[in-house]
């Protein structure tokens, strides 16, 4: 792998950039692999990377039915944070944040991780109570999170409307300074390039059409649009399509897939220095390095694989944006798109074994998977390599839905009464 650096960039500039090679190969699939990853998004590619790097398993194929990073990796609003309430979630997401902090250097690919701070607005007494609970829990878990007064919140994010007369006045905010954003495409490409360099085969335009199981029920390989590939270990990391893939192995999942919308504005000069989230009014906003305001909208209410939702979802979100940031009313929506998120009953992911020997799954990230990408890949690689979970993903089993040990962050932020 040709190393990326300022020096190589300059030297290529003099040579008309003719010396750059492919960032990852386009290999033909081999007849068999030690591990097959189904899904070439950020999580799948990260899994392959850490399998090769941390566990020395390089005989790995990543199968992607379209082009890598083309699913939720390239469609999300790139918010990264780890200020979760429950110990299990905080450990998982902070594991990811720690990896994010050195990721560009680790991958030799600038993923533009920017710790701009993620601020969550409290609009009523219930929010205040809930965010304080988060702040304290995070502190004791070693995760940074601090409470801001409305004035401090405005100082941190000048466009914020902290008028007491607002329909939902800002009563304070929880700020995680280590939170921020990253460049989503670069994450997929960076992992792909680094994994490829260690021998991982990244196979695009290769759809998995079946999972073959032997007489003992264990995985024997995958049927694909490019032929059968033998393997004893399959990791399904297919985001919105998990149920579809798992059904091919005869496993029914506690998942539903919903369209999740996002939008960006036209680009403008820097005006928004951080990430702001308001759960109460469903608004999530930051500004990209390109200058676009990146805004997360909600999910549609019905299962859909169409990657297209209704207009009312976007209008609802923009009402909230204009209410909290009245100066943005004249900004314009440039692009509105949808992804497909698979959601578990407790809105926490499932990372681990399935009832089928050799079949592992990493799914159910709902609307928040991007932030976990490095951590998710790392612990899933561990799980695939060792056949048992890393301590961080041990609680995120499929079995928790049977036993009742749910990890329900959303329920913990229950609506006020």
């Amino acid at each position, binding site marked *: 792998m040709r190393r990326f650096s300022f020096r190589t960039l300059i030297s290529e500039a003099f040579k008309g950039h003719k010396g750059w090679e492919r960032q990852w190969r386009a290999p033909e699939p081999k007849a068999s692999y030690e591990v097959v990853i189904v899904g070439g998004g950020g999580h799948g590619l990260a899994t392959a990377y850490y399998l090769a790097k941390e566990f020395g398993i390089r005989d790995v194929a990543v199968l992607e039915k379209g082009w890598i990073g083309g699913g939720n990796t390239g469609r999300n609003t790139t918010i990264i944070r780890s200020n979760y309430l429950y110990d299990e979630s905080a450990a998982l997401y902070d594991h990811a944040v720690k990896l994010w902090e050195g990721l560009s250097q680790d991958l030799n690919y600038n993923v533009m991780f920017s710790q701009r701070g993620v601020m969550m607005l409290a609009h009523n007494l*219930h929010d205040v109570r809930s965010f304080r609970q988060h702040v304290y829990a995070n502190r004791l878990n070693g995760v940074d999170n601090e409470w801001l007064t409305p004035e401090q919140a405005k100082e941190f994010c000048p466009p914020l409307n902290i008028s007491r007369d607002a329909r939902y006045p800002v009563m304070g905010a929880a700020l995680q300074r280590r939170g921020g954003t990253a460049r989503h495409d670069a994450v997929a490409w960076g992992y792909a390039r680094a994994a490829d360099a260690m021998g991982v085969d990244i196979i695009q335009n290769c759809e998995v059409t079946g999972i073959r199981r032997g007489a003992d029920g264990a995985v024997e390989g995958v049927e694909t649009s490019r032929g059968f590939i033998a393997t004893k270990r399959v990791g399904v990391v297919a985001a919105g399509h998990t149920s579809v893939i798992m059904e091919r192995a005869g496993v029914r999942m506690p998942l539903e897939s919903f369209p999740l919308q996002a939008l960006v504005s036209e680009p403008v000069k820097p005006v928004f220095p951080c990430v702001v989230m308001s759960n109460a*009014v469903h608004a999530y906003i930051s500004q990209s*390095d390109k200058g676009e305001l990146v805004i997360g909208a909600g999910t549609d209410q019905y299962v859909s694989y169409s990657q297209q939702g209704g207009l009312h979802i976007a209008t609802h979100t923009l009402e909230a944006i204009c209410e909290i940031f009245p100066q943005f009313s004249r*900004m314009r*929506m440039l692009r509105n798109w949808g992804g497909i998120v698979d959601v578990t009953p407790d809105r926490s992911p499932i990372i681990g074994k399935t009832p089928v020997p050799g079949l592992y799954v990493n799914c159910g990230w709902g609307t928040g998977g991007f932030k976990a990408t490095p951590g998710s890949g790392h612990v899933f690689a561990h799980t695939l390599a060792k056949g048992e979970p890393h301590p961080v993903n041990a609680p995120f089993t499929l079995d928790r839905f049977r036993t*009742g040990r749910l990890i329900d962050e959303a329920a913990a932020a229950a609506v006020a009464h």
Partner: protein
Amino acid sequence: MSQPFRLATGGRIDRGRRLSIRFNDATLEGFAGDTLASLLLANGRHLVGRSFKYHRPRGILSHGSEEPNALLSVDRGPGRRDPNNRATMVEAVDGLVTGSQNHWPSLELDAGEVNDLLSPVFVAGFYYKTFMWPRSFWEKLYEPRIRAAAGLGKAPETADPERYAHLHAHCEVLVVGAGPAGLAAALAASEGGGRVILADEQAEPGGSLLHETSALIDGMTAEAWRARALETLASRENVEILPRTTAFGYYNHNHVALLERLTDHLAEPPPHLPRERLWQVRARQVVLATGAHERPLVFADNDRPGIMLAESVRVFVNRYAVAPGRRIVFATTGASAYRAAADAKAAGLEVTLVDLRPEEDCGAGLQTLRALGCEVLTGHTVVGSQGRKRVSGLIVAPLGADGRVGARRTLPCDCVGMAGGWTPAVHLFSQSRGKLRFEPAIDAFVPGTSVQAERSVGAARGVYELSDVLADGHAAGADAAGRPSERAFAASPTPAGFTGIPLLPTDADPAKLRAFVDFQNDVTAKDIGLAVREGFESIEHVKRYTTTGMATDQGKSSNMNALGLVASILEKPVPAVGTTTFRPPYTPVSFGALAGQSRGALFDPVRTAPLDAWAEEHGAAFENVSLWRRAWYFPKPGEDMRAAVARECRAVREGVGIFDASTLGKIEVVGPDAAELMNRLYVNGWSKLAPGRCRYGLMLKEDGFVMDDGVVARLADDRFHVTTTTGGAARVLSHMEDYLQTEWPDLDVFLTSTTEQWAAIAVQGPKAREVIAPLVEGIAMDAESFPHMAVRLGRVCGVPCRLFRVSFTGELGYEINVPAGHAREVWEAVLEEGQRFGITPYGTETMHVLRAEKGFVIVGQETDGTVTPDDLGMGGMVSKIKPDFVGKRSLARPDIVAGGRRQLVGLLTEDAALILEEGAQVVADPDQPVPMRMLGYVTSSYWSEACGRGIALAMLADGRSLMGQRLHATTQEGFATVQVVEPVFVDAQGERIRA
């Protein structure tokens, strides 16, 4: 001289109405009917902006909404400034203040031009390869610089004073685009009387007919035909014509979003007129007559100001009577440029035309143009241009049959019109999820298989011949209206064929070639080559890696060239590389328009209870609880919240207080199976509850966790009055209806929400009975006849009431339920009657304190969706007799019966004056290393006036086994020592409540 490039005659501008605008430091004149673009060109201004990355001088490329370069800041007064307005779409209004963007210190002299010199470094994706060392420099140095350089205009800085509106509309046929195809479609569709909406993004309907000065339709001039068509349409009551209206989104089930611009073109808009209106049209059928965009040619330095699309030259000349230059060179790979050239020539401009195609392929236009005296170079390619802030020459060279480029020649000029062929505007079709089909003959994607009830017509589906366009529109309109008919039109021929070529042949070193594909994002053919070389082969990858097609024009002018380039590099057919997905909106739409009226007070309803006005008149502080506004506390002059709440609490404990509990949800459960339904939905039993008695009910979700609670009264054998939490009212009713309708439709029960029917006035305190007894008729008030947890029907103050003897304070208490319209008179009568006992109105905060003193939980505060009845110490309430109720089975799951669950306890701080923070975490050992083991957290915490100290409720792991233990709760500063106690602080025996 004013408007030196205005042609003496012609055009659709109103020469009788002069106007002037500000552009940067200059005042420029124009006429009504001008766009900013035509006005700028009339004044010889080509340089109107700087490109995104390299800050190259840029001019006006097009005449429409696809414009990538001419993006201006427009200032319409205080709070009304916004960036990135397309000069080609903004109508000139007298006094408008506009400015160019993305330069410093000025448009002419831009320091950012240094980037252009560094362009060999700033290639596609360069930032992924560098800026990684040292690590901290990314956020401190590199990223801020990149950000400062990025973006185009500046975001508005003050709140927008404008209004925006929404409108839902329905029609039989929606026609998008009022060019010839759209007009013909609308005419045909509206003949039968069905509702037709015709939307067009321009100020004037007509599309290409607005600049067709020579074509004839059915023997009429194009203008006469257009005028007659519009007149006919306007005379039909079933037709709504919407000019200045862009259909920008095509959603499911023929739901199409339009943006109507109502005031930006008015110098003095009427005060109530919204600036923009969002139409959400549900159309039975949609006709897409969205036309086509002309494709630029990709050659070295094709981005200089003065180089524009050939058809746009024609539009400026014919429609706006503006000469974009005096000496124009047209460069083309197809036929349509000949008409543009001929029209420019006819306007008295000097015209040369360069056609890539060999002489024999150039069609009839060639001879016509030569006959007009224009030089035409066939078989020539363009290899470059000259001029810095405005094009001064076009460098061309003959192209041999073997593909070799011959000797260069420079054609002096002040304007270039380039014609690279046509790209049908299939955006809305694609948004409708229709499948595109590549049509090699016209080198374009056209609508293939429809998925929704729509049809594309005319140029939008690659039909360019005017007579065909009209016939196509007519047939589609008639068909859409359900009355198929065909009609032929006679029209002047429209030569439009072209050779699609994504990069003009050149002899230049490809590594040094600066041939722009995406003008706004400064993506060159070289960048696309680099991306492909690095393995980005899917068009979506190329797009994301190079940012081509990602600018504010969303690739309207660049996508096909980018696609063609990738295909030619990979030597694959275009469809194998893919087409990019078109997403809404077609053109950018203001947030304000999308938000509509939902601003301020209309953002979300503020629900107010019947006594809200009284509370406001009496100085209440309010809090928001779900959508409701509730009185929080009633401060007296000089009191802070704590003092007011302490006073209110004392009043209730010692005398009597009055509280508006009207927001509590109420549901009337009626029918012979009412008790059975209650049995199935609540954890406790209802069969034995006698009419006239109340019971506290706890409801679970099917997963076994507490969903809601409330007092339930049995009014009769077959009638219950159920109360819910304020926020839970709608949810609980839905939950009950769901089970009733879908699981147990055999039960004879009906549910009716009565939340807003009844105002609930809580009168609480030792004196409560004495206060209300005189006002009550028909109800025996003595403790024996009317015990705690009973309900009686009667009258209070002459108003029919449901009187509950219930208490959420631990004191003797009543809740007077009266029809909401009588709430105030009853409230005031109670206050009057209570004067002698010092009756004190109290708010939600006091209510919270009083209930916490008694250990009464609040669902949503003590519980969070993961709490079971046993966790709350209410395991005893759960019926052991009932075989089943919603949630019962889940309570038996392994991890629900396992130890270690969090349980409700009370906490007392060692320092009695300290009030813990709600949300504080509790640990056994404050000195343990991070991550610490947290036992649980404080759910409620208050100053208790009755106890003279702070009290708290908490959920702690195995909390009931920790009674008496010393633990530590987090504070802002560190930890506070607390003692675990039973969660009851006042009157543990419950004597007061039964008084």
